[in-house]
Structure formats: C-alpha cells, structure tokens
C-alpha cells in the first residue's frame, strides 16, 4: 500500500450495479517529500497524480490513509468488481527515519 491524504469525496448518481452504495475518496499520494516533512508537508497537491479509491473504513478529508492499488484492490468484493484502488488503513501515526 501507499499512504496519502484524503482531499475530498466523490459521489456517484449513476454507477454500475456492483458499485452501488460505495463510498469514494479522492486521495493525493505521499511522495518522499511528504514523509520527510510530515509536520510541515509541501503545500498543494502531491507530485504524484491524485486518485479515487473505494473506501470501506470511513476516511474523511484531511485524514492520512493507506491505500492499495492494482488487482488486489478488488479482492474483498464478491465476484468481479472494477475497482483498482481501495483504502485499507486509517493511519494514526507514521514513524519515519530517512
């Protein structure tokens, strides 16, 4: 997984049936800079592209979350689901020594 900051939520009025009722977060991923300057993070969006992730944990804007990208993101679902990013942890603390 990678870490990122939740920068917003996404709601869908139309979606395929498999994704009905899902909760979606807009996440700006941490780069090395964010880890190094954890208490004084670089302003604005991360250099890495932001992404939308399925959220089953209840993250909200400003939270630091861990998210998994790739095929593994769809594993918790029943049957094939077109999800390629999912939050897996609401981060309490990061211990980082470069």
């Amino acid at each position, binding site marked *: 997984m990678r870490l990122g900051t939740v920068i917003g939520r996404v709601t869908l009025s139309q979606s395929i049936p498999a994704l009905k009722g899902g909760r979606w977060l807009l996440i700006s991923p941490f780069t090395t800079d964010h880890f190094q300057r954890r208490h004084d993070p670089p302003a604005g969006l991360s250099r890495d592209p932001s992404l939308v992730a399925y959220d089953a*944990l209840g993250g909200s804007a400003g939270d630091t979350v861990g998210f998994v990208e790739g095929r*593994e*993101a769809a594993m*918790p679902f029943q049957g094939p689901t077109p999800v390629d990013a999912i939050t*897996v*942890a609401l981060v309490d603390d990061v211990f980082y020594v470069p």
Partner: protein
Amino acid sequence: MLMARVQGSVIATRKHPSFEGWRLLICQPLSASGEPEGSPQVALDPHGAGLHQRVIISSDGAATRLAVGDPKSPARWLVVGIVDEPEGGGRLAS
C-alpha cells in the same frame, strides 16, 4: 520485486482485518545504484526487518494473501527477504 530500504513504520488502528497484527514497514525503493527511487511503499513484514535495513519487497498479491491467510485480503506488498549487510548494519557508503 524491488530492492528497498526500511525507513519507518505505520500505525493504524482502523484497518482491513487481514492487516491485524502485522508490522507495516515504510520501504523506500532503491535504484540499481542504491539511490532512492519513486515513492515509498508500505509492506507487510513477516521477518522483523530493522530500520535502515535493505529488504526485497514483492508486489505479488497472491503470495501476500497466502501469508495473511485471508483469500479476500487486499494486501499486496510483502517483505520477502532481508538483504545481507556487513556487520554493524546501517548504510553502505553514504
């Protein structure tokens, strides 16, 4: 698989149940010359790798699901080995 250096760990109370009880290590991928390359990944660690040790991390989700024992786990990155270091550990040259 990527060579990476352990640079810390992550604490999370609220997480997918399959992550329960696992160490979550911040692993900075390294280039061929040993320089940091790309954004850090957080990997599950069954080996007890130490801070600043070099490790090999694998993105094989199937192996990670087997390791955590949950066929529906979204876990992906796993520390699959700890690279041999000269005695004393720490960083090589730099």
